[in-house]
């Protein structure tokens, strides 16, 4: 299924999404990495994330005549935020996470409980991703440095994003991992590592 969603996203719309669905997002999403996740749990968040979407991304931004413009903005490795994400989802009622590489079981559980989905975007495809960002609405916590700051990015039909973890406790990454783990002993046998 292809879905066009507008931020803030309603819980019922997120809960309709199934693994493998393709989603395009419109509205303001916020970039947040390790430092911003830690800071929002310690100090609270300077923006309203209720129904919001967090983009695991440390973009390259350029200031032109006092206005920030996006240069490149692909996803960063989501698993670095594994220990922080469930608390952020619960505390701020986040409905969507955009990232790469997927997240752990605890995050998947939190997504199921609180109604949040994980959207995979191709890692490294940063010029392509930037094309889906209409403009930069603002920046918070720039003292954390450009990559770690909280950037307000106005998305326009941002995608295609793959629903890689849904609200039913399903995860493409967990499915692939399971297959890889089943395959591993067969490969190890072929490599002469086990009898």
């Amino acid at each position, binding site marked *: 299924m292809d879905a066009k969603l507008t931020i803030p996203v309603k819980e019922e719309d997120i809960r309709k999404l199934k693994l493998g669905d393709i989603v395009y997002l419109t509205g303001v999403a916020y970039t947040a990495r390790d430092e911003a996740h830690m800071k929002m749990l310690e100090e609270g968040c300077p923006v309203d994330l209720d129904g919001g979407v967090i983009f695991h991304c440390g973009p390259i931004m350029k200031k032109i005549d006092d206005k920030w413009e996006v240069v490149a903005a692909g996803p960063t490795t989501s698993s670095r935020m594994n220990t922080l994400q469930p608390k952020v989802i619960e505390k701020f009622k986040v409905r969507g996470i955009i990232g790469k590489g997927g997240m752990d079981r605890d995050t998947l559980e939190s997504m199921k409980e609180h109604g949040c989905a994980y959207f995979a975007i191709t890692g490294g495809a940063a010029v392509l991703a930037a094309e889906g960002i209409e403009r930069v609405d603002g920046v918070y916590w720039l003292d954390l440095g450009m990559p770690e700051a909280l950037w307000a990015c106005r998305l326009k039909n941002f995608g295609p994003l793959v629903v890689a973890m849904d609200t039913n406790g399903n995860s493409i990454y967990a499915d692939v991992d399971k297959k890889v783990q089943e*395959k591993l002993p067969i490969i190890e046998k072929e490599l002469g590592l086990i009898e």
Partner: protein
Amino acid sequence: MGFDEAIKNMTKVLLKEALCTKLPEDVESALKKALEKEESEVAKSQLEAILKNIKLARETEKPMCQDTGIHIFFVRIGSEMKIDLGTIEGAIKKGVTEATAEIPLRPNAVHPLTRKNPGTNIGENMPYIYYEVLPEKDYVEITVFPKGAGSENMTTFQMLVPAQGKKGIKKFIIEWIAEKAKNACPPGVVGIGIGGTSDVAMKIAKEALLRPIGSRNSDLEISALEDEMLKAINSLGVGPMGLGGKTTMLDMHIEYAYTHTACLPVAINLQCWAGRQATGRIYQDGKVEFIRR
């Protein structure tokens, strides 16, 4: 133009080419071949996005990935060059600073403990420069190798014992890739360093990543291991971006060094799909050329 000015300019051109406009042809063509092999729609969509992005970056001259890396340089100095070698480091740092502001690059270099970001990609021991001497050559060769964190974070090292031998090496590699490849923006390259001491193994693992896709180690024992492990890795099914598929890695390169009779060091360094690197030479007479290392 002084030699230091030439080095600075070369540094800027190499960063622009590596990060924006000139992904090595062997990498792009390997990605295209990988796309032809994939059957699942999700896997295909990832490779299509990567290829489209490479084209867009080339046309717009923007960094193909927002993670423009931490900057590692390999400088090879011809023994016939009559120049003030003391100027090289300063000139490279100037080039990195200017490229960071002008291209622009993401300021990635931070203090490891305070995490303070000076915004220039310059700091203690960074950019890091490896020097080497080339006998009988009359040029200085500079390779820039910007390394993104997605793949660099999936690095590992083990001091195996000699009794573990080749089997131990294979087990270490296949189990590491099975677990970690999905976070390294696959399909990329696996760089392996076997032998030497811990530091040597790590360094040659990184240098293995500089080799063109499809190249093989000249030692037949080693090249057979490269072929065997590449096939095994791609049977895992991790696939592009870890979303499942036939191509987990485009290639597997192993470098080796003689080691202590009681040691078996093995280093694994991964490269994401964006195998960004660029190499140029400045000759004694001022001539400049660009090559695929």
